[in-house]
């Protein structure tokens, strides 16, 4: 199957999701369930990563700033912009591509192989709408929120480490944070978060939903889904930066 055939199949899968729900209440429940699974379930790992990224950014930026004529508050500006523009949306979503992507792919793959998807089809349920759409919608709701949390925690991590090590007192850090702040950067980060949210749920869902075979193929589908999602995130990151910045 070449890349265009796969792209066509992916688009047909997306088209197939949009039908009238058999029971809106059940779909709503499934959406809420996915919001908890994808959002709350990923909060721990996102928090840990964000705090450490912010902390390491502060340490490394400080290490590279040897000139006495540059004010120390610039370190905070650099950490702030790095976290908002790149670390919070991109690194968080690459990690989520592994965590969430492999989960979606293996879950759907297992359902396909054990005929659970066929069982739903026999009941007259549109499985694309019931199994895939709530996951994509939940990601579009929760991942931008996780990215915002990642921004806040990343910046806080930098502030905390600056204070802890004595490299940058929090008064100077706070001053640097509000200097030359461009609110557009947050919008740009959120645009990236929405794009990546779609990538890290849509692509694994495609690979999981179309698994044929057994346990080995489920594993392969998961790996392919995560690798493809990561590559697509990096590609989209570049395209969005080129277009929007």
């Amino acid at each position: 199957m070449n890349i265009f055939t796969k792209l066509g199949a992916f688009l047909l899968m997306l088209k197939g999701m949009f039908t009238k729900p058999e029971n809106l209440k059940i779909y709503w429940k499934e959406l809420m369930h996915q919001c908890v699974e994808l959002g709350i379930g990923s909060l721990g790992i996102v928090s840990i990563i964000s705090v450490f990224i912010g902390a390491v950014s502060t340490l490394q930026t400080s290490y590279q700033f040897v000139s006495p004529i540059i004010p120390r508050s610039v370190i905070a500006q650099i950490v702030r912009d790095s976290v908002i523009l790149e670390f919070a949306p991109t690194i968080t979503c690459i990690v989520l591509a592994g965590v969430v992507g492999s989960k979606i792919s293996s879950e759907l793959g297992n359902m396909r192989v054990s005929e659970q998807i066929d069982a739903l089809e026999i009941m007259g349920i549109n499985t694309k709408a019931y199994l895939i759409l709530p996951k994509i919608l939940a990601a579009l709701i929760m991942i931008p929120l996780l990215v915002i949390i990642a921004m806040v925690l990343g910046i806080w991590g930098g502030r905390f480490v600056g204070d802890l090590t004595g490299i940058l007192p929090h008064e100077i850090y706070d001053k640097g944070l509000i200097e030359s702040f461009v609110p557009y950067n947050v919008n740009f980060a959120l645009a990236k978060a929405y794009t990546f949210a779609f990538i890290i749920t849509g692509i694994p869902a495609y690979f999981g939903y179309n698994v044929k075979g057994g346990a080995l193929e489920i594993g392969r589908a998961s790996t392919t889904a995560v690798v493809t999602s990561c590559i697509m995130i990096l590609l989209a990151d570049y395209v969005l930066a080129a277009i929007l910045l």
Partner: protein
Amino acid sequence: MISIKNIQKGFSGKTIIENVSSEFETGKCNLVIGASGSGKTVLMKCLVGLIQPDSGEIMYNGDNFSMMNQDQKKELRRKIGMLFQGSALFDSMTVEKNILFPLDMFSNQTKAEKQKRVDEVLDRVNLNDAHKKFPAEISGGMKKRVGIARAIVLNPEYLFCDEPNSGLDPQTSLVIDKLIKEITTEYNITTVVNTHDMNSVMEIGDKIMYMYQGKKEWEGTNQEIIFSKNEKLNNFIFASDFLKDAKDMRMLEKMGKIDNNRNMDELLKS
């Protein structure tokens, strides 16, 4: 009643089902038998619409399934219950929720009415104490019974069972066979069962279709199968010496040559 006419299906240029025609009657257990790879499962998947046949007609009570639009197909599928080979229970749901799921999705009943129906069907399949268990916590036979309960919870008109006895011990197989037979008669539904379990053939096969390499090779009842002269069918059904002897005995019984109420203890003593 379901009737199929000249069903043909192939994959990657290889024909899997070749011009199969038959009728599956209401209120009867219609068995499709054949060796592994004979096309039974593909035929069943064509019948329920999981696979589109290359040609041929599938008529549900006179309505051509292949000509139906998506909404009509969805409507029809709500009248279909299916028991899968691996049971296909939803892993993340308890037994109770597995059975509640079709009711939640498609019925307007109150919570109490739904719960009553779940209790009814679980009682019908003799599983009164498995409500809160997960599929991973129950045995293969229990999974099949939950699968049957889920398939009948919406009072279907058609029941499809794909190898309901696979992986089960003979005693549990008998329980499942008996259950399928009872449900078919009780609800007067059209039941189609794919199997290669000879016990099922003799016990519940009101009508049997034997498939050989994708073609219909023989059709008849479980009474007629004893007297069949079809070599391929006999080689398949009565493969072992034990089964050949059993067939001979049954034929002699049917022809009145030996007493079918004979007392084996006395015969052995004499």
